[in-house]
């Protein structure tokens, strides 16, 4: 039951038993969210800092609600309006925040490896909320929770991650997590958005979206990250939509019973049509709801973890 890992930096080195514990514990927290009073006193007296060096709507609000619903005290830090603009280094910023006695740090940063570095310069429990194009473990865990809740299992399922694999931290965490849980993972997208050596991770590459729909139980559709220069990878978003966008016609042409996930925010009419983004196959908003429960489970398991190194 007790997690082997002290921090949640990524899913690459997290054991399947840890993933299992997090998903199972999240079931209890989902129940808390359905009660009249959506709050438990479990993390009373713990302080959590949400250290966000990058923009975020879902992840940040989700973490903040998860912390509040566990009765932890939470503080939000965002780069704009902080002393970072006065030239304070990352290390100094963290040391100063930690001097105010915090227990856990949830970090999002544009550079890969920042959460790892944080564990070296601080004594707090570190949770990665997205580091560059590396990993976004809590998103992958909530994706896995949502799939398991809907289809009853993960083992043996065929899951295809569609779109901008090269710029996606969600893709990498999903690949590690799903494979650990015994799912078969493939990726689909234009060659320019698929890393050349992705096959080394044991992932099948599909370049035809129709094939991806036919062969899989679940499609996890990623956002085309226009802000990360994905725009250069294909001629136009209209062309991308034409060849890789999920549309009603395309779903009807192939098989219908495929589950659609999207981590948000959605580019309507690019990776998914507006009709499908609100349609019956998708569980996009359920993913968001589950996100709070999964993050509560992670905060609980890491925040109350006992051990000589804690």
């Amino acid at each position, binding site marked *: 039951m*007790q997690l082997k890992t002290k921090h949640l930096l990524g899913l690459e080195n997290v054991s399947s038993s840890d993933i299992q514990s997090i998903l199972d514990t999240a079931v*209890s927290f989902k129940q808390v969210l359905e009660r*009249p*009073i959506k*709050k438990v006193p*479990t993390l009373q007296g713990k302080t959590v800092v949400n250290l966000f060096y990058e923009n975020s709507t879902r992840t940040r609000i989700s973490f903040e609600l998860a912390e509040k619903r566990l009765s932890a005290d939470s503080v939000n830090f965002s780069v704009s309006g902080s002393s970072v603009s006065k030239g304070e280094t990352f290390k100094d910023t963290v040391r100063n925040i930690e001097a105010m006695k915090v227990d856990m740090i949830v970090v999002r940063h544009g550079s890969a490896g920042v959460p790892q570095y944080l564990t070296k310069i601080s004594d707090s429990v570190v949770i990665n909320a997205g580091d560059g194009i590396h990993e976004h473990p809590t998103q992958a865990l909530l994706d896995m929770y949502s799939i398991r809740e809907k289809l009853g299992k993960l083992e043996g399922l065929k899951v295809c991650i569609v779109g901008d694999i090269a710029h996606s931290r969600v893709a990498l965490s999903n690949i590690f997590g799903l494979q650990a849980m015994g799912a078969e993972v493939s990726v689909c997208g234009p060659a320019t958005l698929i890393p050349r050596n992705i096959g080394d991770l044991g992932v099948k590459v599909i370049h035809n979206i129709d094939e991806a729909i036919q062969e899989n139980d679940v499609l996890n559709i990623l956002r085309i990250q226009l802000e990360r220069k994905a725009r250069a990878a294909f001629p136009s978003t209209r062309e991308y939509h034409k060849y890789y966008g999920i549309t009603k016609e395309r779903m009807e042409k192939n098989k219908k019973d495929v589950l659609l996930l999207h981590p948000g925010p959605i580019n309507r009419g690019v990776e998914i049509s507006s009709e499908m983004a609100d349609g019956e196959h998708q569980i996009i908003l359920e993913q968001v709801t589950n996100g709070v429960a999964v993050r509560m489970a992670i905060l*609980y*398991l890491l925040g109350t973890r*006992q051990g000589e190194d804690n």
Partner: protein
Amino acid sequence: MNIKAKILDQEALLRIITRMSHEIIEKNKGPENLIIMGLRTRGEYLATRLRDKILSIENVDVPLGILDVTLYRDDFRTRLKQPEVSVSNITFDITDKNIVLVDDVLYTGRTIRSALCAIMDFGRPATIKLCCLVDRGHRQLPIKADIIGKNIPTSINEEVRVKLLEHDGEDAVYLVEV
């Protein structure tokens, strides 16, 4: 751990459960508006038995709830092992109902304190009564049971072990030294 005495055998245990069922109905003046709520783990099985007994006595199927109080515990900082969270199962509204909270052993009273806090987050019951199979004393909080199966005076270094068929393969209560 060594067993000092077998305090109740199956026959005695079943008689106590029957008596407690009657007491619940008596104290509630009938089975109306009543909810039986068992605390995980063994309280759940006791509660199920009490519910079944009330069904056979009064022919009324009283709603049965199961409460997991892990998230409300006060010993996260002092315990050596992280407690496992489980799911509560309360599928009905508890507002204005009379709840009978069922647990196996009443000791410090801290579990019951957690349970009271947990129940309040599900709604606002009219009353809560506490029903325990064994009261072993040594309370640390001002909590007392309304219905007690058996009072067993103990010393601090003794423990009461309740065994139930559904969970442990036998019906018995033991006094052990740890």
